[in-house]
């Protein structure tokens, strides 16, 4: 046994000048990690993300990898539990030795991870987190994290404009989750932002949606208030239970579902026809868009490398995040380090090619990805479509008091074969 103390040297060891070893990176491989719910009641839809991401990474690997390195993705199931997400992230970093986290999911889980695992101080990137909580744009608190979704404040501002334009004379009501996710939306709806007035507003504590009778009590209140347009800004299980309770009570408003709660994978229109015709929004093209080049390319990749999984909105989101990841890794160069990867996002993250119909906003002062949505309706197959012609009217805004405007963004052409330049 040689103690460190015995290593008293008269000259600097040559290793002092060698390039430092980077966890998760070798000359031939890059290892990434993700934690998200993969099993159980909270996993519907979300658990399709890693399969789609792996499919895209496998496609890139089959085409030479990134700067000669093949990408692997280590997936851990956190059951949507913050303590498990912390444990998983610690294991991914400490035991699996991943280079970076990518595509982790959930507001609370990622706040917990940032707090307890301290990715920021350790300089470990957590890219393209699937959340729209505006708090992640705090660069001091989350120096190495980036989110992919538009902020919930933006989303609420856009819903406000949409509702005021189409349903100005209707009674508008709101169901929202009583946490940071819902509070972000409240900011977007308030008089300084979306300025939307509600005839009735109910905040539900997380988990209460699953308590027998509780969603019925919400519907009863909304119905008594004469609500004609019902906005649901909650998780998909809240949407599901509310819609089921509404059907039972013959409450038939115009449904407007926030993007998080519009998870059609868990609200099967075949068994819940009430959801057909509901309005929701997306920043990516419709997955049934017949003319979108990204949809076509990703669908083909999914069929080849993830053949057992249906190509749906979650597959599109997962593949798009993987596509962004590959480009960022590529741009970080052969001498890949965590710092060089983060620098890419700061300097040119907004210029990375992607399937989004609104621009990305990564910069030295912004951790936020997309900044807008298009509105569409759910068809009989459960797919969100803008209209029969698949033409998109995209709106964009910020998380502050900036106006909601029609986007003039024109998406650049997809790199050949969907591979990074």
């Amino acid at each position, binding site marked *: 046994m040689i103690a460190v*103390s015995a290593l008293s040297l008269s000259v600097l060891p040559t290793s002092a000048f060698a390039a430092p070893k980077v966890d998760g990176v070798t000359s031939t491989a890059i290892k990434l990690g993700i934690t998200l719910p993969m099993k159980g009641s909270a996993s519907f839809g979300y658990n399709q993300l890693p399969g789609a991401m792996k499919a895209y990474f496998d496609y890139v690997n089959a085409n030479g990898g990134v700067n000669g390195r093949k990408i692997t993705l280590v997936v851990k199931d956190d059951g949507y539990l*913050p303590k*498990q997400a912390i*444990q998983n992230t610690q294991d991914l970093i400490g035991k699996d030795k991943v280079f970076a986290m990518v595509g982790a999911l959930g507001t609370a889980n990622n*706040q917990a991870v940032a*707090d307890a*695992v301290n990715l920021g101080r350790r300089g470990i990137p957590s890219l393209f987190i699937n959340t729209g909580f505006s708090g992640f744009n705090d660069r001091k608190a989350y120096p190495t994290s980036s989110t992919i979704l538009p902020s919930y404040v933006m989303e609420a501002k856009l819903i406000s404009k949409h509702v005021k334009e189409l349903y100005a004379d209707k009674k508008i009501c709101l169901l929202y989750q009583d946490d940071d996710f819902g509070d972000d939306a409240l900011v977007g709806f308030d008089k300084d932002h979306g300025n939307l007035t509600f005839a009735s507003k109910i905040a539900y504590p997380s988990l209460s949606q699953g308590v027998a009778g509780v969603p019925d009590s919400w519907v009863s209140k909304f119905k008594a208030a004469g609500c004609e347009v019902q906005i649901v800004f909650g998780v998909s299980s809240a949407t599901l239970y509310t819609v089921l309770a509404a059907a039972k009570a013959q409450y038939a408003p115009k449904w407007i579902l926030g993007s998080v709660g519009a998870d059609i994978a868990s609200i099967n229109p075949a068994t819940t026809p009430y959801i057909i015709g509901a309005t929701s929004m997306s920043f990516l093209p419709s997955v049934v868009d017949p003319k979108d080049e990204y949809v076509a390319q990703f669908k083909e990749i999914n069929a080849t490398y993830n053949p057992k999984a249906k190509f749906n909105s979650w597959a599109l989101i997962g593949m798009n995040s993987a596509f962004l990841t590959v480009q960022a890794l590529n741009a970080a160069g052969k001498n890949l380090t965590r710092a060089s990867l983060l620098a890419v996002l700061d300097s040119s993250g907004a210029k990375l090619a992607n399937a989004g119909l609104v621009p990305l906003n990564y910069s030295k002062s912004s951790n936020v990805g997309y900044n807008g949505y298009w509105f569409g309706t759910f068809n009989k197959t459960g797919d969100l479509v803008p209209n029969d012609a698949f033409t998109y009217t995209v709106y964009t805004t910020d998380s502050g008091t900036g106006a909601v405007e029609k986007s003039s963004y024109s998406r650049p052409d997809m790199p050949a074969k969907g591979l990074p330049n």
Partner: protein
Amino acid sequence: MRTSTFRSRALAFISATSLLAALVVAAPATAAATDPTCNGATPVQTCTGKTSDGALYEMRVPASFNGTVTIWSHGFGTNTSIPGYFAIDSSPQIAPANSAAIVKYLTDKGVAVIGSGFSTQGWNLDEAVKTNAELVGVFKAKFPAAEKFVAWGYSMGGGITQAFAEQYPELLASAAVMNPVDSWDAQSKYFVDLLWLLKNWFDPSIKLTGYADGAAGDMQMLQDIGKYTAMLKALQAGVASGAWPTTSSASAKALQAAGIPSRSALLMVGRLAGISAQSSSFDGIAGPATAAQTAWPLAYAPALGTLENISAVIGYALLGARDMQAKMGGTVFDNSTTDYSKQLSQADRAVYNAAFSGNTAIAGMLSTLNPLNPDAPRIKADAAALAKSKATMYQSTGKIKVPTVMMIGQHDPVEPAGIVQRIADLYEPEFVAAKEAAMAASKDGGYVPARRQLAVLWSVTPKTWSKFTADGLPIPVVGTPGTGHTNFTAGQYKLVIDSALAAAKTGALPVNLNYNHALKNLKLTIDRSSLYPWMKYYDNN
């Protein structure tokens, strides 16, 4: 052998400020100490005596004495004697719980093992440091072959050891500090925030401050212990239903009427005070194999974990607060201007949102803690007592002055991991500077690597540990690694003291691959990246 069953020394404080002046002496005072009386036994002789302040000491000196001596500082002990409840014990302690096995383990190596029972119990950090310093002198006078002294201790003794190393580094070759107390200001805020918040919501009839002097005050405190016990039982009974104790305040009853379950308030007390929500039985991860599998760890486990941890700390908290009041001649805790809403972190709001019953419930609970709420009367410190405390109580600097090994459980309910985290955080920039200085010196032709002077060994939990019956009821789990107070194994104690002994010999901590392997086998880890929140006291200081 698990040593968590070691006899726990009870708790108390006493007025002994006259001894504080002795702290300023630079060298150990041995004039009034009695010389050690040794029995001359072989292979290990035992020597006993009394230091100048009356502390009984004991020394075990092997015939093969190699010049290295360990000096042990024991944990919290009571200064209050209430027949049937508390008894003062000032007998000498020379190893964790006076473990004969550990004493033999050390003397077999040729190491002498010494320690005292201290002259006073309770919050005796100042007195104990002085006693330890004197004891070093007494031993050296008797056994001139003594060369290196290694201080070690846990809990109160951990704080004593750290303070000893900070104030008398010239006497020590190394130190082993296990789950130490923080400075009194930080520790008292932890204790009294907990006690006040529980009293405020769940039983305002609890006295908590203004105890009478002497035996009458002891009985008042005993009555409070009974009330806290009844309250915790009521909270446990109400975890599933959300029912509040019948003794709850008017403000609490308004929260109850608003539909906020008592478990949410219980968790809030824990988060505001800084108590871990993960305990020996509750991991906040596993759920029963029922429909509640996901909801259970989110909604119920945090409150139950908090409750289990509160049960472990509340005795220390109450006795500490009452005895410090006696020692300083009045209430030294003051929360008259505390903004408790600032003590709830953003991460806690998010992570425990479901258990809190949502943001509206969080806002409702915090609103009742407004200093202006007449139903939540604050504690105002006695000015003279506070001044006395500030002027006389030693405040740990957290500085590392001798090679030091620390060990702490992730979820220690009595001495939260943040106490050690603070010391580690304070040390890290010093080590970085030392490394930079070493690199700079290399330009002159010589390179001597900077030696890390602090190693923190975290006792870590398994991945999950909660267990449930087939009906979905939780099964109590005892002794989960990384939880509980002073929940260390004999193997862990041996590794810690071996590390300190090695550091005493070489001047450096034995951190290498073999050492890391040993740590892993003992469910310990060195992780300089994870963060545990410092005690709430430091948020405002």
